[in-house]
């Protein structure tokens, strides 16, 4: 048991932090909010050179084969710098291919991901935004050597620049046991795909993507037909834990800006940080972020070990949603009116943290997963031991 970063992990974090501190300025973040593609290609290439996209991909395909915990450290730094890179969507989709795709699929996309040539994303959510199998209505029907996809996906991250998209489709009517879903690797430029960008709080690139008789070769099926849900669930869990890391990085930076401000901003004759009401607010911001961080890295660590981690992932996201939002809001509060001004940079963090807490599962959804594991399973619960309870060997 050692929940602190080891030397290698610290070095990895510091390298990413130094690079982004130098290159990813608030001016660049602002510029990319207006850019039609939303990311600087030079920085994306540099990220690949630093090994970020391929960090947790197998060496065979140009990756570094490092644990998700390390990738979490990178996403935390990307969040800290609110870096305008399509990193999260790319690594989440690529990891699904690496873990559950065929050899041909891996060879087709992963080397490109690792060297920065390929941008990826995934499409799961539809009009009912819950992360449940029954919400998927988009149909894929076998036809000759292809599947034909029809339906509409919402909130697809970075679709505007994506080369490949992992798409969850219904291939059989909804049934007990969550069968009937299949996952496909889809070329984002396939005929029949159209998309409309959303205007979002984070000013990021999310789209509504319509599939109109889109033909996808049968070889692009990921996993077995109708057995896609466990693969999707693992992908979403990895994505959720990694998003937590990204939110935490942004929230910690946001809190640090408030703490620095409170040290120097004088009111009523002293720095406002000397007032206990402000000091205690700052303490709570950091403790909440620390708590989220411990939960998140435990979840990532369990995913790395191949241990059940659904509960741990949901614990992390439900907690980060609330504590990171509170930290961002309190940072606004400590900064006062200036934080509401467009010219001041603080909103770059506030808008992203708030938006990210809404993605990949609300607090209610994640707590419902936790309570089901606690209450709807046999056996006594004990803190520090797995939930739901598993028989001891």
């Amino acid at each position, binding site marked *: 048991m050692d929940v602190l970063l080891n030397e290698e992990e610290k070095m990895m974090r510091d390298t990413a932090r130094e690079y982004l501190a130098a290159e990813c300025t608030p001016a660049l973040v602002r510029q990319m909010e207006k850019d039609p593609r939303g990311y600087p290609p030079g920085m994306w290439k540099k990220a690949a050179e630093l090994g970020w996209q391929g960090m947790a991909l197998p060496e065979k395909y140009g990756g570094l084969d490092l644990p998700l915990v390390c990738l979490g450290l990178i996403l935390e730094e990307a969040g800290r710098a609110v870096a305008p890179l399509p990193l999260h969507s790319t690594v989440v989709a690529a990891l699904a291919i690496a873990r559950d795709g065929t050899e041909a699929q891996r060879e087709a996309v992963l080397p490109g991901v690792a060297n920065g040539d390929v941008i990826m994303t995934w499409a799961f959510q539809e009009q009912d935004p819950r992360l449940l199998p029954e919400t998927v209505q988009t149909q894929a029907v076998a036809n000759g050597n292809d599947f034909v996809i029809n339906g509409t996906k919402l909130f697809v991250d970075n679709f505007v620049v994506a080369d490949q998209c992992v798409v969850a489709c219904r291939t059989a009517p909804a049934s007990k046991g969550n069968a009937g879903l299949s996952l496909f690797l889809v070329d984002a430029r396939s005929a029949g795909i159209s998309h409309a960008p959303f205007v979002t709080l984070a000013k990021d690139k999310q789209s509504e993507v319509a599939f109109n008789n889109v033909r996808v070769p049968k070889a692009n099926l990921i996993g077995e037909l109708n057995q896609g849900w466990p693969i999707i669930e693992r992908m979403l869990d990895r994505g959720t834990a990694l998003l937590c890391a990204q939110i935490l990085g942004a929230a910690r930076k946001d809190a640090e800006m408030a703490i620095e401000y409170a040290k120097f901003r004088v009111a009523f004759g002293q720095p406002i940080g000397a007032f*206990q009401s402000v000091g205690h607010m700052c*303490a709570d911001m950091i403790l909440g972020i620390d708590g989220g961080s411990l939960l998140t890295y435990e979840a990532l660590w369990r995913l790395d070990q191949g241990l059940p981690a659904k509960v741990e992932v949901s614990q992390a996201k439900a907690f980060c949603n609330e504590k990171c939002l509170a930290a961002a809001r309190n940072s606004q509060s400590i900064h006062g009116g200036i934080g509401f001004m467009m010219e001041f940079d603080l909103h770059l963090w506030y808008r992203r943290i708030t938006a990210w807490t809404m993605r990949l599962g609300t607090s209610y959804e994640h*707590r419902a997963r936790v309570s089901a594991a606690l209450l709807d399973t046999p056996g006594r619960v004990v*803190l*520090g031991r797995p939930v739901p309870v598993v028989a001891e060997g």
Partner: protein
Amino acid sequence: MEFAFTPEQEALRREVRAFIAKEMTPAVLAEMEEHNDGHPFPRNNCHSPHLIALFKKIAERGWVGMSYPKEYGGQGAERISQYIVEEEFHRAYINVSLGGSGAAAILAAGTEEQKRCYLPKLISGEFSFAPGFTEPRGGADLASLQCRAVRDGDYYVINGQKMFTSFAHHSSHIYLMARTNRDVPKHKGISIFLIPMDTPGITVRPLWTIQNAPRAPVGTTYGACRTNETFFDDVRVHKSTMLGEENKGWNIGSMGLNLDRVGANRYLMSVQRDEDIINWIKESGGLGGYSPAQDPAIRDKLAELWIEAQVCRLMTMRSMSIVEHGGNFTYEGSAEKVWAPEHGVRTTEAITQMLGPYAQLLNGSPRSIRSGLFAHNLMGAFQSGINHGSVQIMRDQVARRGLGLPRGAKG
């Protein structure tokens, strides 16, 4: 990062669990019910022969103070192994930790002679220290203490009064903070003395807590029915009873208090209710056919509390990790001491809204749930946020020491 215990540590846990299953006899449990009087585990001076025999067995196994050096009666084990033992015993409502015993401060600041005198006997249970910290007008402002120790040749003469000297009626010694210099700023005139309770001039009077009538069931957070006030009237002690240097007692005392916060007990006393309520809901069959598990609002709240409890656990693991890396704390111990007590209160209060009028039924009442545990806990849980450095003071420490925020005009 590594979020698992080693196979050796897991084996130790199984060994302790097997011991508890065998040794927690009905006679032991009956004594625990009877003597819930302020000592979490009565090691001496009390009428609990089965408990004393059990403690001896535990000590003989080397399970008390495992991380202390072998030359002072410990095992030289990793701190995390000691944590595992403390955790398992705490779940059986037995406190085997040396937290609050003064041992940590004696190990860090004692003379070789003091370490050899006290540590082996604290570990064996022959000695135990009552805390002699705060005073009638002191409260959380510990450094304002007025109890005086005046030098007289090779002796000091002590006069004053200490409040909340828990276990003083069972303890062999008291760990006393007293003022040895009144002419310097308040933090710079304090010294610590290690004083046998049978020294002439010491009087212990009981202070009965709100858990006294009826007495709280075993396992209640701060279920003790009594603490004490202790009076010192011309108590003469030899200068060799001083811990560390004269007038350096504030730093030693603070360091000892910080070390005492680290461990299984404060974390577990705060989170045990989470397990209790969930397991009660699963096992009890509910209330007249109604199960709180059916209510979506309660389900959401239980999950929220469970997640908070995990944060408490992981903050404790963080402190353990820091200890293993040399113990360089900045604010992490204080963080733990904010989160765990406040979480304990949130859970305790939430449970009352899950059980409604049943949660007001005390020990011995008809239809009380788990001997009134949840009602008694409502009278004790908040205490964890008050003593040993209140959560407000802990937040101050996080803000000033951890985040570097400035001190206020009246700080």
